Every structure is written in structure tokens, then in C-alpha cells.
């Protein structure tokens, strides 16, 4: 019994090691770190990219732009960085870890409410109604910074019930019915489908209140030409069409 267990254990260890290696079988691998709001559209673009480049495997890491910027600055092995805000990209560039960022899309804020807009909200000022449970992104996240700026410019003083860590969490609180309203991006409202409804509001169309998405090649990438062609692909007509379908605005 004891003797037989050894080869089994060795096989397990070998399997585990092989799993860690991510058996790409000699193929080229492109690692893209991207803002979570790009999840759906980048996954689709990744499939297109793999079809156009046989033998290439695109691997994504989706998270908030600020934590991705931290990973890039700390030297995470990645080929492309796509951020949802200029500050995060600027941090990576300033640290010498990202080169030549290219703006590929913009996103605009919208009020997110339950289907049918039961509270009848139509403006940012409506969010300050007493008794209304409103959630925003935390000021640390780009969506929270933009929402605060938009409210400030509209002269609306608002004490949110919660400052959620990211924009998906804001939408989730409205989907669950815990919050009556939130401020999210247009694309997140669209991605949530029929479970929520977006209310377009005046005063958020100012370019300074829009989220700016930029992609850049990460310095020290093992495959600079491939990373460059991903950045070009996102900026190409096909990439731009996919972004537009997801509700992003053109740069």
C-alpha cells in the first residue's frame, strides 16, 4: 500500500506542475490586463483575435484599473494594459512600465434604476430626494470620482447609503433591490440587460466627466509585435465596432 502511494503522489505533483505551466503547447500567449468594464467586449475581441492569429492564445486579467495599474507598476508579467481612467494609465507610464497609450473608447455616466423607473427619477437632483437609497462608487474608483464631480457640478449634495468598491457592485445593489438608484456607466447598464434600466441625465456629457479608456503595450513584454497588434486591433474598425455595440462611445 505504502509503496504504491508514491508513484501516485509523484503523478499528482507532475499533474499539478503541468497545470501551473498552462500547457499552451508551444503557442504564443498574449496576456491582457484590462478594466472590469471591458470584460464582455474584450472577451469577444479576444476570440476574434485568436481566429485572426492562429496559434495565439489571449489570456485576460480583469480588475479595477487602479489595482491593475499597481500590478503593472510592480512588474506583473503582462503584454497589454487597458485602463478605464487616465490616472491609472498615467501611473503605469510614469513608472516606465507602459508605452504610448492610445485612447480607444469613452464611457458616460447614467443613473441606474429598477426596471420601469418606479421612483420616476429624471435628473441628478432627483437623487437627493429624502428616503431614496442611493449607492455610488467609492471615490477611490474612477466611476466614483466622476460621479462626485458630476454631482458637484450639478450642485447636488448627496449622502450615499454606500460607496461601493466598483461599478459592477453599484449595479448589483440596484438589481437586488437594496438600492433605489445608483450612478454607473452606460455600458454597465446595457450589460445588465432587462434587470435594470438606465436614465440618461443632463450634465454628464461634458468630456471631463467621461471615462477615458486607453490601451498600451507593457514595457518588458516578451512579444512586443503581438502586443502592438492587439492595441492596433482594438483601435481598428472591427474593434471599434465591437466597442460601439457594447455601448462605448468613440474616442
Amino acid at each position, binding site marked *: 500500500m505504502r509503496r504504491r502511494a508514491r508513484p501516485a503522489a509523484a503523478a499528482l505533483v507532475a499533474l499539478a506542475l503541468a497545470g501551473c505551466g498552462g500547457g499552451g503547447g508551444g503557442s504564443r500567449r498574449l496576456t491582457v490586463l484590462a478594466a472590469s468594464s471591458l470584460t464582455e467586449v474584450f472577451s469577444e475581441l479576444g476570440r476574434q483575435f485568436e481566429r485572426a492569429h492562429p496559434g495565439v492564445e489571449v489570456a485576460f486579467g480583469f480588475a479595477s484599473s487602479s*489595482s491593475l495599474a499597481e500590478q503593472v507598476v510592480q512588474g506583473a508579467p503582462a503584454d497589454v494594459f487597458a485602463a478605464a481612467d487616465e490616472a491609472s494609465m498615467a501611473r503605469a507610464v510614469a513608472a516606465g512600465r507602459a508605452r504610448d497609450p492610445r485612447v480607444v473608447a469613452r464611457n458616460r455616466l447614467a443613473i441606474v434604476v429598477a426596471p420601469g423607473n418606479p421612483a420616476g427619477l429624471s435628473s441628478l437632483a432627483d437623487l437627493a430626494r429624502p428616503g431614496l437609497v442611493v449607492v455610488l462608487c467609492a471615490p477611490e474608483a474612477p466611476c466614483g470620482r466622476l460621479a462626485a464631480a458630476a454631482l458637484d457640478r450639478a450642485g447636488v449634495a448627496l449622502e450615499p447609503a454606500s460607496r461601493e*468598491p466598483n461599478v459592477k457592485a453599484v449595479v448589483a445593489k440596484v438589481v*437586488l433591490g437594496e438600492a433605489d438608484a445608483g450612478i454607473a456607466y452606460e455600458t454597465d447598464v446595457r450589460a445588465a440587460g432587462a434587470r435594470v434600466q438606465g436614465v440618461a441625465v443632463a450634465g454628464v456629457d461634458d468630456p471631463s466627466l467621461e471615462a477615458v479608456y486607453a490601451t498600451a503595450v507593457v514595457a518588458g513584454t516578451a512579444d512586443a509585435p503581438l502586443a502592438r497588434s492587439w492595441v492596433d486591433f482594438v483601435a481598428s474598425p472591427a474593434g471599434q465596432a465591437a466597442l460601439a455595440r457594447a455601448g462605448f462611445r468613440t474616442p
Partner: protein
Amino acid sequence: MSGPRARPPALVALAAAGAAAFLLLPLAGLAWRAPWSSLGAELADPGARTALRLSLVCSLWAAALSLAAGLPLAWVLARVPFPGRRLVRALVLVPLVLPPVVGGVALLLAFGRRGLLGPPLEAWFSVRLPFTTAGAVVAETFVALPFVVVTAEAAFRGADRRYEEAARTLGARPGVVLRRVTLPLARPALVAGAALAWARALGEFGATITFAGNAPGRTSTLPLEVYLELEAGRLRSAIALSLVLLAVSVAVLVALRDRWLRAL
């Protein structure tokens, strides 16, 4: 009182040293990158102080509630045979294995505005848990309670029943036996369980941010503050706050150990 000094086999000593190093190295990493010179300034920040105070209040409430609810449950599980006891025993462990974020969603589905118990809670008692400090305490209690139940149940089951029988034959009523014999016998385990529950509550993040949200002064405990500092790229501040959390918990656990566990 310690037994005779044992000389460990070399392999055991090596493994023990490895395990200790594995636990200590990440702490050394934190200490290495800690902004020691500006630590005072980071901690004088009103936001950090509010979060620390809130963390202490919520975690102490959670530990107290875990004891109050966990001890009766542990005693019943240990002493009262009933159909489905094994199932209940397994279910008690669910919060330990459930990802805390999922625990937070589950709490919303139970106690949220559209949850199973949320609407009656609000209609009858005007209690609303999400986005409130009470909600943060509930989230922490959810993840902390199993530690009390597991340790206390093991103690109740392992206790020598002859002491209780002796007390009963001497005329003690069941309540007196419980208070004067069973609980004192189980005390080391109860203290350990309460300490573990408190520590788990203090570090709680996922269930809290999902169920209670993030509202400064109401639900933004120190772990939430640390996470948001990291999100904002303020690594130094995040490390400083983590060190406070660490120092407070180590101080309390060491004090507890000296006060309660050494004599036993």
C-alpha cells in the same frame, strides 16, 4: 505547567521551522515596506481612526453575539440527540467554506429589502440591516459564529460527564450544573473559540462590503479601508492600516493568553 522538555526529531523540527517561517515571512514583508516614519501621521488621519473604532465596536459585538448564540447551539449539538443532527453540524460549518462575498449575497437574500426576512423585519421592527452598522455586525457574526460552535461543541463532547453526574446526585438543578460545572470545565475552549471568532470578525471583509456596503463611520471597517486604499494605489497607507489591525489583534490575543490560558 509544561511537561518534560521534549527533543523533537530533526524532521519535525525542520518542518516546524518551515511552517513558522511561512507564517512570519509575509509579516516581515509588511514590516519591511511599512512607512515607519510617517506611521503616526497615517494613524492620526481621522478616517483611519473612525474605521479602527468602528472595527473594534463591530468585532466585539460580533464576538459577543457569537458566544450568546453559539454556546446554546454547541451544547445542543453535543448533548441532545435529534434527527438531522449530523446535517445541522455540517451546515454550521458552511460560513467557514463559503467565500465571504457569497456569504454577503446570501445575507442580502435573507435580510435584504427584497430578502426572505427583510420585509417583515422592516415592517414590524423598523429594522433595516443593509448599509447600517447593525448590518456590519450581522455580517461579521455570520462568519465568526462557527468558530465558537466548533470549539465549544468539541469541549462539551470531550468533557468528563462524571463531574456533572456527581453535581446532579448532590442535588444541583440542570441550570446550576451547566453554570457551575459544564461551562467552567469548557472554559479554555470557550475562550479560544471567542478569541478566534473575534479575530475572524476583526478581519472580515467580503461579507461586510457585500451585505453592509461601504459607508464611512457606519460600515467602513478597517479591512474595507485597507482595500480601498490599495485600490487607490496608496500602498503605504494600506500597509500602515494593516499594521494597526495586526498590532491590536496581537496585543489582545497575547493579553487573553496570559490572562486566561496560561493557568490552565
